[in-house]
């Protein structure tokens, strides 16, 4: 316990009051205002992997770490599609996952929309035209936004959310 308290005091707040030139903090506050306005306080995201290599998941999880801490902007990842406003899909959609993806989408209450994350979710990426992939999400369900990158960085993911919610 002592070590935890000591560490807490010495390290202080690690969450970036971002010195990066990108101005994450500014983006974030803007985002928070938008989220409050549009979604009645918070914006809930459900993530579904349809066959990605797991790098995108790793980066999405990174957005929730103490450095990026996406939750402070009112965006949280939820465990059930029933709680979600948005479905974040990664992977080129393996045939096996097609039905699971559709069912997850159907389980969400409206209004709802889909954001795809990572190059292979757009059109299959490097896995394009394989016998077992559906070449991305767009032919199966309506996609509102795509976040490019292989994998997109946590900052890119947060930025994309902002650009989108601004619209």
């Amino acid at each position, binding site marked *: *316990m002592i*070590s*935890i308290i000591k*560490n*807490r005091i010495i*390290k202080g707040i*690690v969450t970036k009051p971002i010195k990066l030139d990108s101005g994450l903090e500014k983006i974030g506050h803007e985002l928070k205002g938008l989220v409050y306005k549009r979604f009645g306080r918070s914006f809930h995201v459900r*993530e*579904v*992997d*349809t*066959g*990605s*290599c*797991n*790098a*995108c*998941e*790793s*980066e*999405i*999880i*990174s957005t929730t*770490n*103490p*450095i*990026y801490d996406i939750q402070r902007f009112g965006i949280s*990842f939820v*465990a*059930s599609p029933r709680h979600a406003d948005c479905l974040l899909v990664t*992977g*080129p959609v*393996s*045939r*096996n*996952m*097609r*039905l*699971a993806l559709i069912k*997850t989408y159907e389980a969400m209450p409206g209004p709802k929309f889909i954001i795809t994350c990572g190059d*292979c979710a757009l059109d299959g*990426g*490097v*896995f394009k035209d*394989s*016998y*077992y*992939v559906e070449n991305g999400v767009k032919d199966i369900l309506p996609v509102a936004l795509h976040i490019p990158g*292989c*994998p997109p*960085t946590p900052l890119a993911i947060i930025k994309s959310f902002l650009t989108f919610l601004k619209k």
Partner: protein
Amino acid sequence: MGEAYVYVKPENFKKACLYFHEKLSSPVAIMFACDERADKKGFRVYCGFMGIKHRAWVFVTMDVPQDSLEFESIANDIYSAGLFEREIKEMFGVSAKGNPDLRRLRLHDEVWPEGCYPLRKDFKIQSAPAAEKKDYVFNKVDGEGIFEVPVGPVHAGIIPPGHFRFSVAGEPIINLEARLGWTHKGIEKLFEGKDADFGARLSECVTGDSAFSNSAAFCRAVEKILKIEPPEKALLLRAIFLELERIYNHLNGISGIAIDVGFSFPAGFASVMKEKMLCLNQKLTGSRYLKGVNIAGGVLVDLTAWKKKALLKALGEIEKDFKELKGMLYSSVSFMDRLDGTGVLKKKTAEDLGVLGLVARASGIEKDLRKDFPGIYAKAGFNLMRESSGDVMARLNIRVSELEESISLIRQFVDMIKQDNADLQERMKLREGVGLGYIEAWRGPLLYWVKLNKSGIVERCKIVDPSFHNWEGLCYSVLGDIIPDFPVCNKSFDLSYSGNDL
């Protein structure tokens, strides 16, 4: 560190496999088929063993004629061959006679028709008939009070898909069957017909968190076939990046274990350290996941003087932070209590299943390709930690000690880089042949068996991620535990879905 191929007649295949299995005391490390109907009128089946004592990989091979499409199963005698035989059956339609379980692994019955074998050379996607929509049959446990808990494929967390079927009596788990294959993308087929440069990039997308080890193993295989040896500096750089990959993944694993038992402060601390490592990776190579570094013949990224400095500085910081993290974890009695004795994988079970890598070392099996087939690692000194209890605690200890060893290894390798302007790539001369590339990725031995033709095009690429063996280990380790312990057991194994499903 060669490969030996022992060609036998089909009737002697089983005998030969059993002989090497016992002689080398190795599980089946890799087993696959190759469609060679065009010139040999049949399918060639390979079964590979790891000969640690002799520092050689031994492959028993045979030809299965195309009119019989059957060979005698070895899975009844060597358990670790079972999954490979199922895979050969579903991908090539060559069945192992006598294997009690030939259900399909990755091509799910609901969406893929039977009798349609994608890894055959004459397979065409257009000709595939519609699926018959059959249901998968799970192993069933009968008895009073036993009920089933299905979980997945879509899980509550931000993790890849997999289906787990628990049979429980009261609280304890009686049986766990993992049905995987949900992320199958047909990667092995995608390699075919492409050149080695494309292959190196594609291999990075096999498992996102082992992008570097995947491409390194693929490039090793190609280099072996082309009979070229990358310059020493390139080998040193590869070893450095491999250890960097190990560090960030072990931090991720430690963070995950802590969060799965609700110990959130150290979990957050470890994830901050992971982020630091990812930023370091980006600084050094331009990619947070070390993509785009490897190429057949060497590496594309140099470690210049300022990068060296940044690397050593970051390592110093990580080392200091890690000491603190360790203090936090090991001084919490309730945390230790939660891990101790949870998810035990016994040594005998691990040996029979052919479990490899980190998980095997936690169960008392001392195998590590960095020691057994050292290559550049022969020049560096490091201790191989081994635990014998096989529980979550042991797997945490292994991670902790490996992380510390990795830091020391990187420092040693950086010291060994003498020339700053040395060559980083060897020229390629095209040559046909087959070769096995292997590397001790952070999960365990990662194998790439590649066949190239005269013009340098990949004809067959077989990938074996350690997860392929270790998933079965997970299913055994949770028996007797309760379902709420499953997440932490799962995280302590930290297996790849994508690497398993390909």
